[in-house]
């Protein structure tokens, strides 16, 4: 069975020459929820931007490995198809909410796909319902709270129904209630999910598997609860010891 997402020997350097990713290889099966954890500067965001072809900006910088979505390699010629399959939730919702109203923003994806007006309106309504923001169509992004903005961004992705969701720090900056609501929404989605996060409680609750990145290299991968229980490993890579801090039931198998 072809994995939904497959990364083979992915390497990437910044324009200044500093290495960001070093020969990463992993796969994600359809429907799985996998976390990418690691200290700041580990390369989590950079990795996520490779999932829908935004990086590398210019192809052909030598053999830099390969990212495959449902078996098809991500490259310039496949950009349109890939972006329809993979939805990326960026870290700062203000970067992603660039339209004048909520309805317009959520409709952006479907409209780019060529959906007729009536259908895109329906998709917008359904997506907003999914994230618990029904009736927010005419609201203006500037008036929304952080949690609401994040949920509108998520609705904007759900509106064009990608098979794979890639999320960069989804719970960052959310208050406990907004965070709980977001976790609930993410748990209910059947699609493949790749989540980069510092929120280890979220990892323990949502993600079956975790990938530990440090300085661009994949240091460990396996069932998330096992990884989180390994105090030595966590400490060695600049992470707090969740085994000590998280409620016991989260890490129980």
């Amino acid at each position, binding site marked *: 069975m072809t994995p939904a997402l497959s990364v083979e020997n992915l390497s990437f350097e910044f324009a200044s020459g500093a290495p960001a990713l070093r020969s990463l290889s992993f796969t994600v099966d359809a429907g799985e929820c996998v976390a990418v954890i690691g200290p700041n500067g580990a390369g989590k965001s950079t990795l996520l*931007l490779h999932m*829908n072809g*935004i990086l590398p900006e210019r192809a052909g910088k030598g053999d830099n490995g390969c990212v495959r979505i449902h078996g098809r390699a991500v490259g310039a010629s496949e*950009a*349109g198809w890939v*972006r*329809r399959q993979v*939805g*990326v939730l*960026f870290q*700062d919702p*203000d*970067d*992603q*909410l*660039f*339209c*004048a*109203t909520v309805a317009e923003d959520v409709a*952006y*994806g479907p409209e*780019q*796909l060529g959906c007729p007006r009536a259908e895109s309106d329906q998709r917008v309504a359904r997506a907003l319902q999914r994230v618990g923001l029904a009736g927010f169509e005419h609201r*203006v*992004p*500037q008036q929304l709270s952080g949690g609401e903005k994040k949920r509108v961004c998520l609705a*904007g*992705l759900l509106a*064009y129904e990608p098979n794979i969701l890639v999320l960069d720090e989804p719970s960052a900056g959310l208050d406990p209630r907004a965070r709980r609501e977001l976790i609930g929404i993410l748990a209910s989605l059947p699609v493949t999910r790749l989540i980069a996060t510092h929120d280890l409680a979220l990892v323990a609750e949502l993600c079956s598997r975790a990938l530990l990145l440090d300085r661009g290299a994949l240091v460990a991968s396996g069932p998330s609860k096992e990884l989180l229980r390994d105090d030595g490993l966590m400490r060695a890579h600049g992470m707090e010891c969740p085994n000590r801090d998280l409620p016991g039931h989260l890490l129980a198998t």
Partner: protein
Amino acid sequence: MSSIHRASAGLKLGVSLALIVGLAALPAERAWWGLGALPWLLLVAKLARLSFKPLLRRWAFGAPFLLGAASLAWFQPHGLAAAAALFSKSAICLLILQLLASTTSIVELTRTLRSVHAPPVLCETIVLLARYSSLLGDEARRMRRARAGRTFHTSRIREWQALGNALGLLFIRTVSRAERVQNAMRARGGA
């Protein structure tokens, strides 16, 4: 939302322009006819449920500039009359524009622009401008507060330096944000 707010932006814009053009066409001796529009404008403000005090305050904020500009007309024969005519015309026009601004949102404005086939790149720029200007303003305020928290003694030169540095940094952040927004657009644009 009053009926004025709900009216189409094109209609409001058209009526405003017609009034302003009419006022512009009035020769100096008949400029005081423009004052006849005042009761109608106040009625519109009432219908739009706009409170008079903030409206008046905003108008009073812009009026001195009109006075200054109108005074340029003083240095010619019948200068005082000419200056007064200019001031009265422009004062009424300012009120018309402020009523328009208070009852029309940028969203409606861009929709109207799009419907008259204004260039798409201009419309998109306006939408993004409206979307991000308050955000930039907030960022600028946060930077200023953070800097003020560590500033103990300022001179004029330092103020200018601080201003310049802040604006420079703000522009750098602007460009970074533009790149991230561009990525977000491409991520959902499929191209």
